[in-house]
């Protein structure tokens, strides 16, 4: 088990007039190599939760273990934990500060006191992971790039530390469809090819449900659903709507058909899923009115 949370509670402004309970008794296991989507309404505690994964926040009560180690114990080297668990915040491009992309991505490895050769190797490797050509980009200023590219540089600067787990908070916010798809497919590739555990945090279901294997749904500081996306869409659609998350259009379409008494599978995630399911149903029903042959 990579990360384990036991009965974690977190309260902002404890014992103050604006005391807010942000996490309520969260217990959670994350295994190495998982590809997870963490989803919930704004203010439900997503960002608070992920800040517990590498000790940026300490629980008000409860325990957080990373590879079996209680990270909030005295004497734990949090630097090492933060090398293992890389957090990419919202709009990471706002954190870029170096003159060249090389220096930007080299910043982390430099702090690890690696040799020049090793640093360059890490930078090459990280830029490759986000599909930016080293020869074209290394010496350019990060501020000359498009929004999507800047975000990928920010991502590379975390990857160069070689984390075992990568947590990304709203990685696709404000990108156009192409920029969004690019980041998502890179995340998938990083997971598949390098075995890095990935957690995507978002309030937008359509964006992540399609690619993750496990979905965690948060509401008011609690994890209310945990399972494979298809199963959650099939069985708990009402709960998702109740907590203000909404369903992808195609999933909603299937649920509305079901509500009208039609026999149809509702656990669809994509347009392809929906198309296949509808065509299957049409074939099975006797109304083969206008289906073309072949």
């Amino acid at each position, binding site marked *: 088990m990579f990360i384990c949370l036991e009965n974690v509670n977190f309260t902002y402004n404890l014992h103050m007039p604006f005391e807010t309970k942000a996490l309520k008794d969260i217990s959670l296991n994350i295994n190495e190599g998982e590809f997870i989507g963490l989803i919930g*309404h*704004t*203010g439900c505690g997503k960002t608070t939760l992920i800040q517990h994964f590498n000790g940026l926040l300490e629980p008000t009560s409860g325990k957080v273990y990373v590879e079996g180690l209680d990270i909030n114990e005295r004497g734990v080297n949090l630097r090492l934990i933060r090398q293992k668990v890389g957090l990419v915040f919202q709009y990471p491009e706002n954190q870029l500060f170096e003159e060249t992309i090389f220096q930007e991505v080299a910043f982390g490895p430099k702090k690890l006191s690696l040799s020049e050769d090793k640093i360059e190797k890490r930078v090459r490797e990280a830029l490759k992971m986000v599909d930016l050509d080293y020869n074209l980009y290394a010496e350019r200023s990060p501020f000359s790039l*498009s*929004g*999507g590219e800047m975000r990928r540089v920010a991502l590379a600067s975390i990857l160069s530390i070689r984390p075992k787990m990568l947590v990304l908070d709203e990685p696709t*916010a*404000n*990108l*156009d*469809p*192409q*920029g969004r798809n690019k980041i998502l497919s890179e995340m998938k590739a990083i997971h598949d090819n390098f075995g890095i555990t990935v957690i995507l945090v978002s*309030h*937008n*279901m*359509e964006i992540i449900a399609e690619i993750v294997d496990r979905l965690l749904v948060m509401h008011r500081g609690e994890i209310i659903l945990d399972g494979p996306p298809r199963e959650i869409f099939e069985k708990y659609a009402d709960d998702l709507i109740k907590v*203000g*998350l*909404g369903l*992808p*259009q*195609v999933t*909603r*379409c299937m649920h*509305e*058909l079901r509500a*009208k008494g*039609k*026999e*149809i599978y509702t656990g669809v995630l994509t*347009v392809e899923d*929906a*198309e296949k399911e*509808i*065509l299957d*149903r*049409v074939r099975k*029903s006797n*109304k083969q*009115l*206008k*289906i*073309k042959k072949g």
Partner: protein
Amino acid sequence: MIKIKNLGYIYHLHKKNQVKALDNISLEIKRGDFVSIIGSNGSGKSTLAKHLNCLLLPTSGNIWVNGMNTKDKDKVWAIRQKVGMVFQNPDNQLVATTVEDDIAFGLENIGVSERVMKERVHWALQVVEMEEYKNSEPHLLSGGQKQKVAIAGAIAMHSSYLVLDEPTAMLDPHGRREVMDTIKKLNKEENITIIYITHLMEEAAESNRVVVLDKGKIALMGRPEKVFTQVETLKKLKLDIPQITELALRLNQKGLDISPHTLKVEEMVDHLCLYV
């Protein structure tokens, strides 16, 4: 009416790094219209929006707002009063310590009487359904509520046009719905003209007219059901089409009698009820 004729805009004009952001755009937006503007990053959407209330002035061509040319220095304030703007980040545009004060801010600047100010603030709060929050501190509101306050601030000035530059980009689905419902209400009930910039095709599908920008030019324009059926063109422009429209097109190609102009889940459900 807003009339845009042969509008061109170049950033860093006369410098080495000049960028042509808008190229010969002509467009008319009539009173009461609800126009959405889509396009990939860098296609010129925000540049166009900033021209509508003199935040940018054309490098070439002209824009008239109710007959006033935006280049006419004497008309700047009159135009800005007519054309309200709401930007993406709700935290960057609220200035006062209470919701009420924030909405009154613009009115104070144009020196309306206290009685009128109170009336307008009250009316604006009512329209966006935020009356109960009038004494709240803006920073304690949700993202969707903040955007509604920003909208109220614009309409309190009695603007006839509201330009919204990706107002829902930072909101969750609930906040997005809240903002979209408010905008539709403004358009229908108060006859305010809406110019809505977005990345979300589902949102664009709710407008009357879609303008697709590409590299500073108008690539496509028309009713949403016409624009979103041009799948190949949209994909070439790096844009999505709404899921339901894509599903309708695919099923149509497989021979089901489903209109490829389907934009809404409800329409699709009605079509499908005949089959399954």
